[in-house]
């Protein structure tokens, strides 16, 4: 009887400490942290708004009604109306779609471009590494937003151009990170073992090295989503947003509102708050992920 109780107790102890894998452990740590959960909630709000915009928005983002222009927030127009009488609430909701699509696509492009460069440099080493990394140094010499400005200016305005511009400005950091994570793995025991049984180079890289080097990249991608949303809005603010003026883009909405700072300050507040809330969400999640993956970082 007592033996059974003791063995039962022993069985419970180690079971609690057994790891369920890096990501599942990290996820369970993440949902136990306040900031991480708040980040998830804010991102949920942002993504939900973007997906449900056509269902929630009381008006279309482009419908003009000059009779109701520059109206203060009211029951009919929760966030007021802009210079052309468009409903600000509907435009903020539709703006979430643009920010989400452009922000996520830009980070995905940055991940692919940077990932390919970083993987080739980290896995092949030697001359390939040296040439690719000098190229990355060149890209890093141009501050991100300036590089994005240059690209959109050259390729002309448009959503795909903005995605590419912000994506390319993100790529060098991803390339550096992946290369940095891959370099020590080249001499890891399991890679040497796979190489010794004749695994081809591509398989070594894709099956053994890259999956083990992705962690810092995923954290960086989450944080990059925040800066990408800000950069996309920044391009819009500088007049490099979508060419169609009826498109609801948060940065462009802010630029339009600067002419009416005295008359309609709410036109700055609502799109501004939308950008800040989504950026805070991704920043909190990024910080939370970093701390959950490596709890030593948490102090």
């Amino acid at each position, binding site marked *: 009887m007592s033996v059974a109780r003791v063995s039962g107790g022993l069985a419970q102890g180690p079971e609690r400490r057994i790891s369920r894998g890096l990501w599942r452990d990290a996820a369970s740590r993440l949902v136990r942290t306040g900031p991480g959960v708040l980040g998830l909630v804010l991102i949920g709000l942002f993504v939900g708004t973007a997906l449900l915009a056509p269902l929630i928005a009381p008006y279309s983002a482009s419908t003009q009604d000059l009779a109701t222009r520059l109206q203060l927030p009211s029951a009919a127009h929760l966030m007021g109306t802009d210079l052309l009488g468009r409903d600000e609430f509907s435009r903020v909701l539709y703006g979430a779609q643009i920010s989400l699509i452009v922000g996520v696509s830009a980070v995905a492009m940055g991940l692919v471009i940077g990932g390919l460069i970083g993987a080739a440099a980290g896995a092949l080493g030697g001359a390939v590494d040296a040439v690719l990394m000098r190229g990355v140094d060149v890209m890093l010499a*141009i501050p991100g*937003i*300036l590089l994005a400005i240059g690209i959109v*200016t050259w*390729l*002309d305005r448009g959503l795909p151009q903005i995605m590419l511009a912000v994506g390319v400005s993100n790529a060098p950091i991803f390339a550096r990170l992946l290369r940095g994570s891959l370099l020590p793995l080249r001499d890891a025991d399991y890679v040497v073992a796979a190489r010794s049984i004749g695994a081809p180079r591509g398989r070594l890289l894709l099956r053994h090295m890259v999956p083990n080097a992705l962690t810092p990249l995923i954290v960086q991608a989450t944080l990059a989503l925040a800066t990408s949303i800000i950069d996309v809005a920044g391009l819009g603010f500088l007049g490099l947003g979508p060419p169609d003026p009826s498109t609801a883009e948060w940065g462009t909405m*802010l630029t339009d509102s600067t002419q009416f700072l005295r008359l309609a300050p709410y036109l700055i507040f609502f799109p501004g708050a939308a*950008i*800040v809330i989504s*950026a805070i969400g991704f920043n909190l999640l990024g910080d939370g992920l970093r701390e959950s993956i490596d709890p030593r970082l948490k102090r």
Partner: protein
Amino acid sequence: MLKYIARRLLTVVPILLGLSVLLFVFIHVLPGDPAYAILGQRATAEQIALMHAYLGLDRPLLDQYVQYLGGILHGDLGASSVNNRPILQVFLQRFPATVELTAASLVFAAGAGIPLGRYSGRNAGTWRDALVTIVSLLGISIPIFVTGLSLQYVLAVDLGVLPASGRIDLRLNVPAVTNFMLIDTLLAGNLAAFVDAVRHLVLPAVSLGSIHMAVIARITRASYIEVANEDYVRTARAKGLTEKRVDDRHILRNAWLPVTTVIGLAVGGLLAGAVITETVFTWNGVGRYVVDAIKNHDYMVVQSSILIFALIFLVVNLIVDVVYAVLDPRIRYS
């Protein structure tokens, strides 16, 4: 030390060469014709051909690159395609305004960020630390143009305590000598103008510096906590040193290194951020020069300004590396 500086200088040369190739390729190889951008989409084929000849775009690519590079090496960064003014000359004329703004932002970012980070680190785990963490999270997440427009509305438009835009009240009529407004007002012996210039500087500097203030506070906090947990700090306390002495002599001196790096790197970020800040506050620096060039499709100005910005960025990084090597001798020998 000289050997280290020479080694670092040598690494800048290929980067600059690479940059010149990259910017050249952007203009000449990627889709998007500068001639169309200058003349508009309705330009005729003949007009486009003439513009190509005027810009030298009808010659072989290698020829064009060699001429472009030769020009750069002779300090000729081309002329604006809108008003034909030499780009470098206009850039240098407007650069002091941007330097003034960047310097003031850096003073704000470091002046507020370091004490905040130190306070947060000393009170790690308390509500005071949480409060500073929230402030720095907000600082990182609020874009410059949102901070700028909000400050402009509250403090300039609504309360009227600070000017909303520009570098100085134009009625004060200060002669431009150095193009640094603060220096020019002092040279003119006009104290009222100096005060006015400082008042004009406050909102743009705070807007531009807010993100970097938050980053500096975060790094200072992390660095402070890391050093405060070192064995030698525990030993210092065990020796019976006062908390202030432990703080000043043992923690801060060692926590300073990563903060220096971040402050140095902030200079590049601030210069880039000036593009947006100068637009918000109608500040006549190089940032607005670039934005105006974008609006006028003035490719040469955008291209050359980015090259100059990158050069400044590289030089600043080089200076940061050298300062870092002076502060931490281990770096020189690694």
